[in-house]
């Protein structure tokens, strides 16, 4: 038991303690320089009724997550299925698809600013000759979130590896049974592969929802939330409140609202899983 002590203490110091503290701080008007006062639920009331930027950032974050999560899941799944076809050169393809997720986020942000450059960037250089009108990417209010979603598609390596492992766990006999019944590849996909990897889908789905809702670095480095707050992701708004305006109390309340939203989403996904996730062991 003593062996586990550091980890248990760590949990108390860096997780449990801060969560409780966060809730208490959220009930104050804590600013760095002044003595904090209890103000009860005022912060929460302000957030839920009077904060235009809160609503804006929540909408932006939802838009980003609704685009990014399903597209990344789909792309990672398709790649994993292709790699699972007993294909030659699998290690090379796997390396290539994993590679971008290794790139430090700050470096890939700098790189993608350059790729998105409307005048000399790679993306417009490819698209303009194809007849696509010159896009403003991260510099346009309507294109900035789709641009960030596109960028997020570059980082699907770990998800793909987890899918691949799930696919490799599907017993071969199931496919043979479909073949004996005269089924084609679509039937194998629809009635064997997808049901068998639903636990993996759930795992990837929940982790990527939690991660995507907290995207920060890209918005901080690439757009600073702009143009016109069109990419003001939730955690960037929270960061600005806490570390630019040093409104620690208000920012903690924002953090708790996010916590509740993420926990609620996780619970919903888990609840829904009894309808669509198939556990072979049960």
């Amino acid at each position, binding site marked *: 038991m003593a062996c586990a002590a550091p980890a248990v203490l760590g949990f108390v110091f*860096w997780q449990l303690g801060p*969560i409780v503290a966060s809730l208490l701080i959220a009930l104050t008007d804590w600013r760095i320089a002044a003595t904090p006062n209890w103000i009860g639920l005022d912060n929460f009331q302000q957030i839920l009724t009077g904060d235009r930027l809160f609503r804006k950032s929540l909408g932006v974050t939802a838009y980003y997550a609704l685009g990014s999560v399903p597209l990344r899941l789909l792309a990672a799944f398709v790649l994993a299925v292709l790699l699972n076809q007993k294909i030659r050169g699998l290690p090379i393809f796997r390396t290539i698809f994993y590679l971008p997720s290794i790139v430090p986020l700050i470096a890939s942000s700098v790189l*993608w600013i350059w790729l998105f450059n409307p005048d000399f960037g790679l993306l417009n250089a490819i698209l303009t000759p194809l007849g696509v009108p010159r896009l403003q990417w991260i510099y346009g209010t309507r294109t900035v979130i789709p641009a960030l979603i596109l960028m997020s598609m570059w980082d699907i390596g770990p998800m793909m590896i987890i899918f691949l492992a799930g696919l490799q766990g599907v017993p071969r006999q199931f496919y043979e049974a479909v073949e004996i019944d005269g089924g084609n590849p679509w039937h194998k996909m629809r009635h064997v592969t997808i049901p068998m990897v639903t636990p993996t889908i759930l795992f990837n789905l929940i982790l990527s929802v939690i991660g995507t809702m907290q995207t920060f670095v890209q918005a901080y480095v690439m757009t600073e939330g702009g143009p016109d707050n069109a990419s003001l992701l939730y955690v960037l708004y929270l960061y600005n409140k806490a570390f630019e305006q040093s409104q620690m109390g208000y920012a903690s309340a924002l953090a708790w609202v996010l916590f509740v939203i993420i926990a609620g989403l996780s619970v919903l996904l888990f609840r829904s899983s009894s309808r669509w996730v198939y556990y072979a062991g049960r």
Partner: protein
Amino acid sequence: MSAAEPVKASAPSRLGRTGRARFGALCAYALLLTGSVVMLIPLVWLVRSSFMGLGQIFIFPPEWIPDPWQWDNYPKALTTIPFVRYFFNTLFILVPTVVGTVITAALAAFGFSRLSWPGRDWVFGVLLSALMLPYAVTLIPTFLLWARIGLINTYWPLVLPDWFGGSIFYVFLLRQFFLTLPRELDEAAIIDGANPLQVLRHVVVPLSRPALITVAIFTALFEWNDFLGPLIYLNDSRQFTLALGLAEFTGLYTSQWHLLMAASTVVIAPVLVLFLFAQRYFIEGITLTGIKA
């Protein structure tokens, strides 16, 4: 879709079974190759830009081969900002963090897998819930704590937490691995008079080298890439890490794309090399935590 359809599909088709399989494989290759090109092009663009002069970089439509190759973009980018210093700063955080995480995560994983004590699995379950916790919630109180102690602008806030098991993710990963080792080995060692710590040191650790290396690599990678931690705890530019340095550089040299790309390449290159040489640890580590979750 009617139930009769599978029967129709089994009727001999023009391509035949092997022909159809070969066609499928061909399609798979075509898709995989296309995907590979899409994934690699941004990196090619990065390296290509890092060797170009400003004149050539702003030609439209763009050219792919630098002419001439401007090697001195690199020394120029790396000396305008003290990147060497930032490199050593990063190592100064990274090394103790990796050591602390590996030691304490292995201890905890050992306690949660090979030793039995009342409430063990319940405690582990509670700890594991931290995986689902948004970091945004713990960020501010932790910052205020370090500010109160007066350790902002030191490396303590970035290093010390990792001496408490690191992320529970690593404890989980190691525990999953330890559970696959046969228990008889521990029992044999205990019969020979070993205490639990000796079992960990002489039995479990030697057999778990791949998993421990995986944890070390993941931790090192996380620290190398970490941006938010250094951003809030380090304000003095003499203490900046590479990630912060690159952000600072980006702010100062907007539109000097050749230099920005050279600096980015320098930050990315060590990670890519590490990945190419240690790939199997990445794959195995992710697989281990992904499947049995």
